């Protein structure tokens, strides 16, 4: 389940649209707990309409929540901690359901969870033998330090039932030799028969050597991400309780150092095991979502976005509180934090759908629809991603190497827009609309062929701009990496301080953020029904776009020490303005959802059917 893909990689895998968040509509999930009391955060003074309330929880914090549930079950059902944990895991952490079922039939619930043996007695303790074999029939076990320490030594139940062999029951290995049964043990997995072999067994008494147990548990955790680890004996459904796993994987205090590689592998497996249980708990609770970033173990709690209905009016973009990739609990200093900016990306993701980035202002359902459309049409649209085009006047080849879309042909000095190839001078003016699609062509289309051409043209208009903002955001960041080096050098050669050269970084971050907003506005506009509301939406889109292009262009102007103060002033002003325009787009779109202003040209869950379907 732990497929943690790259956060930009949303075209590649259609399966991600299946979403894990809302797969379980049955009554199976646990009730909606409110964790607010335990993890209070200071109330933000004024929440913006495009923001949601959420808390980020560390793994330890989630473990506390789990412990609370486990203790609750312990006290109500009178079972031990490990048993309570197994029962809860089996019932998907639904306390009420567990209690109800347990009251009804404790044995069944407990056996189903692998917490206790069936009442009919354990499966035959000695592994099944080949029916043709004549080897010794008694089971030979030896209590050792390991099993004593765990209190799991063989019980006095005698294995009276001789195994019945039906034709379809697989045979396991035969005992190799028939030495004196009492002091002879051969591990049936590795065939180690060393005299002091240490063995372990669960309550079922299926004993195997400690090393095999360790290898098996590690393999289950590492290869299969399994948190419910059954006994190794064939057909035995007993699940290893947590203390058994811990004691098998972690060296006993004061024990002599053994195989270092093995020990560190075991410790890593124990860490992973704890994480797997937390992931399971989080996955069973609609109020929680595990951070999708690689090797991050934080969880976000966002009860206001737990219901499907809420996703028709909010875009629950959250952040787990961590940045970058790597161990989470490292404190980072203030200067590191500043330096992180672009490299150590914030772990931002959508609580409501599997998209691992900020898709505001567009709601999940529409975002998914758009990404699916893009994935389906990827071949048609591939040519757009090219980095070179021809000048519309003189046809010489022009390469785009920055984020700015204001192109100037080196040869004929023609200034044009990279996106629509139209004259740049008219961009940003009220009568010119690079962002708006002229629907007339589609309306005039009569026959099927011209209709389908019109519909492709319409899609390409939006896709082109969508893809271009994505690409431009990336190019701005790339270009900035080069600029940054130059700025650092200037600190040394001029009187500028480190803080004074940071304005560029701030601006690039803002450009990247706004281009992400712009990118998604094109997916929204593609599905918005024609009318006044859409036009207002596109006005805001255009104003933000113009502001972003201006700032982008400024960021690409040459940097010299003596021009820095003026540049700094204009970049700072423009950054503030861009920020404002972005706020307007986000706020107004979010308010539109809350007010029910947006109408679509396709059917969208939670909205009225479209009056007119365009696509």
């Amino acid at each position, binding site marked *: 389940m732990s497929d943690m893909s790259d956060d930009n990689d949303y075209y590649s895998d259609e399966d991600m649209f299946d979403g894990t968040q809302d797969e379980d509509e049955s009554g199976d999930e646990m009730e909606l707990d409110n964790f607010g009391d335990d993890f209070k955060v200071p109330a933000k003074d004024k929440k913006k309409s495009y923001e949601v309330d959420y808390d980020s929880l560390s793994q330890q914090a989630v473990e506390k929540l789990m412990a609370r549930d486990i203790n609750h079950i312990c006290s109500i059902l009178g079972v031990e901690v490990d048993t309570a944990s197994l029962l809860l895991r089996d019932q998907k952490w639904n306390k009420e359901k567990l209690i109800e079922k347990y009251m009804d039939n404790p044995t069944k619930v407990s056996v189903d969870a692998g917490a206790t043996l069936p009442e009919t007695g354990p499966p035959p303790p000695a*592994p099944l033998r*080949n029916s*043709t*074999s004549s080897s010794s029939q008694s089971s030979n076990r030896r209590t050792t330090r390991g099993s004593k320490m765990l209190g799991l030594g063989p019980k006095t139940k005698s294995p009276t039932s001789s195994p019945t062999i039906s*034709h*379809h029951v*697989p*045979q*396991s*290995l*035969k005992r*190799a030799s028939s030495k004196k049964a009492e002091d002879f043990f051969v591990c*049936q*997995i*590795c*065939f180690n028969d060393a005299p002091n072999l240490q063995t372990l067994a669960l309550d079922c008494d299926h004993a*195997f050597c400690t090393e*095999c147990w360790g*290898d*098996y548990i590690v*393999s289950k955790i590492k*290869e299969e991400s399994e948190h419910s680890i059954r006994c*190794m*004996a*064939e*057909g*035995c459904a007993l699940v290893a309780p947590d203390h058994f796993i811990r004691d098998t994987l972690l060296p006993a205090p004061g024990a002599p150092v053994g195989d270092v590689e093995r020990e560190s592998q075991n410790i890593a497996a124990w860490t992973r095991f704890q994480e797997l249980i937390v992931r399971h708990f989080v996955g069973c609770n609609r109020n929680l979502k595990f951070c999708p970033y690689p090797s991050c173990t934080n969880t976000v709690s966002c009860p206001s976005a737990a219901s499907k209905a809420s996703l028709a009016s909010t875009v629950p973009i959250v952040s787990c509180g961590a940045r970058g990739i790597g161990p989470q609990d490292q404190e980072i200093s203030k200067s590191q934090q500043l330096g992180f900016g672009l490299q150590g990306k914030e772990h931002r993701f959508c609580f409501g759908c599997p998209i691992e980035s900020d898709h505001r202002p567009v709601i999940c359902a529409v975002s998914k629809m758009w990404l699916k459309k893009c994935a389906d049409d990827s071949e048609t649209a591939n040519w757009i991603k090219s980095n070179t085009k021809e000048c519309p006047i003189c046809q010489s080849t022009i390469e785009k190497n920055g984020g700015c879309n204001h192109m100037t042909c080196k040869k004929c000095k023609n200034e044009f827009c990279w996106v629509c190839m139209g004259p740049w001078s008219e961009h940003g003016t009220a009568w010119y609309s690079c962002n708006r699609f002229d629907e007339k062509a589609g309306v005039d289309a009569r026959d099927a062929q011209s209709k389908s051409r019109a519909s492709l043209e319409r899609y390409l208009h939006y896709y082109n701009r969508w893809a271009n903002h994505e690409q431009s955001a990336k190019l701005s960041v790339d270009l900035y990496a080069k600029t940054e080096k130059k700025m650092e050098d200037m600190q040394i050669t001029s009187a500028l301080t480190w803080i004074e050269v940071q304005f560029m970084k701030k601006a690039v971050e803002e450009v990247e953020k706004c281009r992400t907003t712009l990118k998604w506005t094109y997916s929204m506009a593609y599905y918005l029904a024609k009318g006044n509301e859409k036009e207002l939406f596109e006005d805001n889109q255009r104003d933000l776009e113009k502001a972003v292009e201006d700032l982008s262009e400024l960021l690409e102007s040459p940097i010299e020490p003596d021009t820095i103060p003026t540049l700094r002033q204009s970049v700072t002003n423009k950054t503030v303005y861009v920020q404002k325009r972005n706020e307007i787009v986000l706020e107004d779109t979010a308010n539109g959802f809350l007010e029910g202003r947006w109408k679509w040209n396709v059917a969208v869950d939670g909205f009225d059917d479209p009056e007119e379907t365009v696509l």
Partner: protein
Amino acid sequence: MTSISVRRLQKELTEIQNEGCPVGINLLKADDFQTWFFTLEVMGDSLYQGEAYTLMFRFEPQYPISSPAVQFVVSHDKQAPIHPHVYSNGHICASILGSEWSPVLSVVAVCVTLQSMLASCKKKERPPDNDRYVRTAPDNPKKTVFHYDDDTV
């Protein structure tokens, strides 16, 4: 130090050589501890009477902690048996080779299970998703996550 799989497979091999395989199962080739071949016939009354199949076992160093990769050999002169849990490329959908694998099971135990799987078959047919699966199947059947719809296997 020899790996657990070598030690264990050596043991299984010695046992097969000393005591032989159950009726209908024969060791064809076991030159190393990576790949073994067996022939498989269904004895008595069954839909597969008189037919012989070849099984291939591939072992990882973690065998028997991890299950062996088992499949029927399909070549110019060999076919996979026609069975609702056997794909035409030889891959087998059997829980014992996946989630129900237990490290105490052995190569011979797997052979016997597959033998009885064929013996109890009521109708010779391919899995319903055979064509789709075979088109995209990985070389190693262990890379496939099978959905075991039938616990009798």
